[in-house]
């Protein structure tokens, strides 16, 4: 099978849209609420998850025929935990400020449902290359939603993007006030809900049948 066969490209592409882990499968919501108050940590988080899902997918896919079925979850956890620790140390070494902002949420990537979901659903049944693409796709699908949510939260909540003020000062002089609700986690839920609303309104095939 060629490297960029239709099947493989699908594994890469569908998580970005029609099978998005956040908006369609509704996984990984907790960290989407926690780290999206600003764009920078959201992007770092999205990239970290992408790297970890891709690597974990590859490793588990390579091991998949040797893992006894009854202890597969613990093996998956060990692999993910090792990768998370590596990423966490890497961030502490090279992006200390962001790692402080992300605090426990880097460590909590271990419990991110997207990871275990992809390992169980895809890597255990597919080859390493396809699993790698699937991991990249799902990680980027997650990162994409994080960035959209963080964009609106930072813009409306602090009037900034990447920490630079974008809403001009004269707006504040004329009575504009930043929306404090946007800095609270519930705002992320509302924005994710809006994204889901938009996606389902555009792609009616995603809607459940009415009964």
């Amino acid at each position, binding site marked *: 099978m060629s490297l960029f066969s239709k099947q493989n490209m699908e594994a890469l592409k569908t998580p970005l849209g029609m099978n998005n882990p956040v908006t369609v499968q509704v996984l990984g919501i907790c960290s989407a609420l926690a780290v999206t108050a600003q764009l920078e940590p959201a992007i770092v988080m999205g990239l970290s998850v992408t790297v970890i899902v891709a690597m974990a997918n590859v490793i588990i896919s390579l091991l998949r025929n040797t893992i006894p079925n009854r202890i597969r979850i613990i093996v998956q956890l060990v692999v993910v935990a090792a990768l998370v620790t590596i990423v966490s140390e890497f961030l502490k070494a090279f992006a200390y400020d962001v790692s402080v902002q992300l605090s426990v949420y880097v460590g909590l990537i271990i419990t991110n449902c997207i990871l275990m979901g992809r390992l169980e659903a895809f890597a255990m049944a597919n080859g390493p290359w396809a699993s790698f693409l699937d991991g990249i796709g799902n990680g980027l699908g997650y990162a994409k939603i994080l960035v959209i949510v963080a964009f609106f939260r930072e813009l409306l909540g602090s009037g900034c993007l990447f920490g630079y003020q974008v809403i001009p000062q004269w707006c504040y002089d004329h009575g*504009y*006030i930043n*929306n*404090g*609700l946007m800095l609270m986690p519930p705002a992320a839920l*509302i924005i994710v809900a809006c994204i889901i609303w938009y996606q389902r309104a555009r792609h009616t095939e995603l809607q459940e049948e009415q009964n």
Partner: protein
Amino acid sequence: MGLRQLVDKIKPNFEKGGKFQAFRSVFGGFETFLFVPNHTAKSGSNIHDCFDSKRMMIMVCIALVPALLFGMYNVGYQHYLAAGLDGSFWELFGYGFLAVLPKIIVSYLVGLGIEFTVAQWKGEEIHEGFLVSGLLIPMIVPVGTPLWVLAVATAFAVIFAKEVYGGTGMNIFNVALVTRAFIFFAYPSVISGDAVWVADSAIFGLGADIDGYTQATALGVAATSGAAPAWDLNMVWGFIPGSIGETSVVAIALGALILLGTGVASWKTMLSVFVGGGLMAWVFNQWGNPDNAVAMMPWYQHLALGGFCFGAVFMATDPVTSCRTECGKYIYGFLIGVVAVLIRVLNPGYPEGMMLAILLMNLFAPLIDYYVYQANISKRAKRALKSK
């Protein structure tokens, strides 16, 4: 020419094939607002009087008028008091009227605008739900709330608390309270603290500009200064700073009489809110922390201050978001009162707990109803088994 004839004359333009058929839902909305519609049920036998939901909403609006008029007068009164000016009754009222009117207009424009657009877009009949919400919203915010904040909050509430659930009658939360909650969490500086409760600028030559005047509400004072203001009959009459419509117990009582007399609101909900709040306040008086000024406030003061009366009469009794079962109404109302006083006493960050208490119980109303139904079902099942 009578109004009916006028409506009948322009009606063909709005029906299918007419000039303005695109606006037929707007037209229908106004027609049924003015006249009880003549539609009859097509199947089964249905008997009901002409008191449909539009008439019910109008009754609530009428009941709100005393509190609204008093609120306007009080806005002027507080402003003149703060500015140290003397004014006649009409100057005071006129000032308040001019300060409150823009809020009412903005609330209706934004809310009805969204409702009409959605109805037009979906090709549905326009619902009347915003008639009451639109009047409630300006009455539960302080006079210092900027109009754009009010507009954003109203739009948020109408879209996210009402339209996404399916429109009038389908909402889980009281729309007016969601508006207030949105402002409360998104723009806390314009709805809490001590700088927003008294109007501070001249309007069309009435009043005067006063800079940096601060005056907290009685509950705000109690929560921050550690000493509750002494009991004062003005707390009943309403000559105290607060949200526009909430201060006067007397004016709200007038509205309550109208609501109860016409049977629009349930006395069970209303009464049990007061019982719950009073009881909880009494419990705190007996066993609360003596250093906590709010806990030591007598129960009648708890009921008179803040939005307690307004919430009990106009918000808790909202037929859409409250319990439907008669027994459930007692539980629902009682818990609103209890939770409101709990929040006031135990959370110094929220001097007023009525809004959050009602929203919280809105969430539980269906659950209470469910258990009331189940209890009734099992009671009857037991009775049936016994008689066998």
